[in-house]
């Protein structure tokens, strides 16, 4: 149906969406600005890659184990982050991403700078899946992740996160254990990122430490911030747009980093909420026209007594 090239891009879009959702949970909802989310992608990808290549696990058992490892990593890295906030937290998370990357490079067990190759595609009914099926799997995973994310933010956890983001002091005065909910954010966000990492690793079939260093974390930040931090629609839009853009405009890909950087600066100058974030120009337009549209129906059909 699609060419191989289109399939690859679509699968990447899916993996980045899931990782972006993870970053969005930690930084967008819980408000803990994290500049090292690619670490969790790395944990997921490396766990799954090691399990499938060295220990002969099939993909379907490696995936949950990798998710659990990412969650554990989220817990461990969340602990120091509980003690600090804002600028300190940013520096710490950058630090975590460097320690992680240099450990992967220096320890021969993880394949060193060349990484791990020969990661198998997942098997379904005894045969390796085709790329189309893999795309469907990624797509299903994205839907599950988005649905879970909606469920989460409308539950107690999500409300607690948003209240921590708005004012941590007041939240703790209200009797909410902010430390607990921040840790939840790290664990759940890390699991999301780990899932993205696993999907990425099994499609690429080889991974290097540099895929999960500082720059990929920045890419995630750019996607979510561009789309609208703190919203699921923004994350989806950002991940899709940012992954497609260098492919649609080939001449850009040479200058990808500088354009990403400039985009971040200009977004912060003119639209800090992101393209589709709450209270952003475009989203306000869409929202108010939607309201007007539905209002017209309401005046037609609703009872007049109010």
């Amino acid at each position, binding site marked *: 149906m699609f060419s191989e090239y289109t399939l690859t891009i679509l699968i990447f879009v899916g993996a980045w969406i899931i990782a972006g959702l993870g970053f969005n949970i930690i930084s967008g909802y819980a408000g803990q*600005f994290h*500049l090292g989310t690619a670490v969790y992608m790395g944990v997921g990808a490396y766990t799954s890659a090691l399990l499938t290549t060295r220990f002969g696990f099939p993909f379907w058992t490696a995936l949950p184990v990798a998710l659990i490892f990412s969650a554990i990593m989220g817990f461990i890295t969340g*602990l*120091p982050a509980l*003690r*600090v906030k*804002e*600028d*300190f937290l*940013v*520096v*710490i998370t*950058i*630090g*975590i991403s*460097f*320690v992680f*990357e*240099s*450990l992967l*490079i*220096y*320890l021969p067990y993880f394949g060193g700078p060349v990484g791990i190759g020969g990661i198998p595609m997942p098997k379904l009914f005894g045969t390796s899946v085709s790329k189309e099926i893999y795309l469907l799997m990624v797509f299903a995973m994205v839907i599950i992740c988005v649905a879970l994310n909606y469920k989460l933010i409308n539950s107690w956890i999500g409300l607690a996160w948003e209240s921590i983001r708005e004012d941590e002091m007041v939240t703790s005065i209200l009797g909410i254990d902010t430390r607990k909910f921040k840790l939840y954010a790290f664990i759940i966000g890390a699991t999301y990122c780990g899932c993205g990492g696993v999907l990425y690793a099994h499609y690429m079939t080889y991974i290097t430490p540099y895929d999960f260093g*500082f*720059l990929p974390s*920045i890419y995630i*930040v*750019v996607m979510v*911030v561009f789309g609208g931090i703190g919203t699921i629609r923004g994350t989806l839009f950002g991940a899709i747009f940012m992954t497609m853009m260098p492919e649609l405009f080939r001449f850009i890909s040479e*200058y990808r*980093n*500088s354009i*990403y*950087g*400039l*985009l*971040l*600066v200009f*977004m*912060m*100058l003119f639209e*800090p909420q992101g393209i589709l974030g709450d209270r952003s120009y475009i989203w306000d337009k869409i929202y108010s026209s939607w309201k007007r549209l539905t209002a017209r129906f309401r005046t037609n059909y609703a009872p007049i007594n109010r």
Partner: protein
Amino acid sequence: MISTIVQQILNSFVLGSVYALITIGITMIYGTLRILHIANAGVYVAGAYTGLLFYLLTHNFLLAVIGAMFFCGLIGLAIERFIYRPMIPLPRAVALIASVGLFIFMSDLARILAGPLQRPFPLDLGQRVNIGEISLSRIDILIYVFTFIIFAILWFIMNKTKIGYAIRAISQDLDASKIMGINVERSIQFVFFIGSAISAVGGILVAILYNAVYPSMGDVFSYKALALIVIGGFGSLLGAVLAGLLLGLTETFITTYTHVPLSREGIAMFFLIVLILFRPAGLFGKE
């Protein structure tokens, strides 16, 4: 044995003073505006490149340093005026994200303008100097001299001049200083100018130390500088200098005498994380 240790300490202080030079700029800016100026690493790369350019044009090292300082100071002013100033009333994360973006942009711009290849810095100072069993290269001595001069000037400005008092007042309380009639805008511009100029010197010194100028040279040092401002306590100038020297020392000794599976920046970041766990305000910061 003692002479090798002294030798190691002297070598490590060379690294340490370079670290301190790079950290000072970010620390000063953090002290006044409370913005984590990650993009300072881009300024530092720009400093190394303009220094090289001026040196190739004039063949005078001092002139090259002064030219690069002036150029980077202007970059710093532009960053303050056009990027950070509109963001001061907004949440702190806004300026932070912009700073990250600016850093990515600037290091990629260096790659586009100057090419990805490594260029040598053709400064030839001649023989190593031997004092007893200790031998120092002239580049080491140059770095010591420059660091000393810059810190002396900086100490003088911060402690003996009106603008220094103004900067210290602003770092304590920006609004109160405004009420007391301090020209806050001009002082902040001054901080950005000085901070960026000092980073430029840091860039040039690193370039002659490793005899290499390349677009990603800012990365490693900037991350270390980030670790250092935390270790030194945010906004504390003395803390930044001491933390720089300390990091140079630990790095040199750890890499020569033990086999830790971490790169040099990995070591710095590891210490940072451990430190934060036990002393969140940094080694020399106030609680």
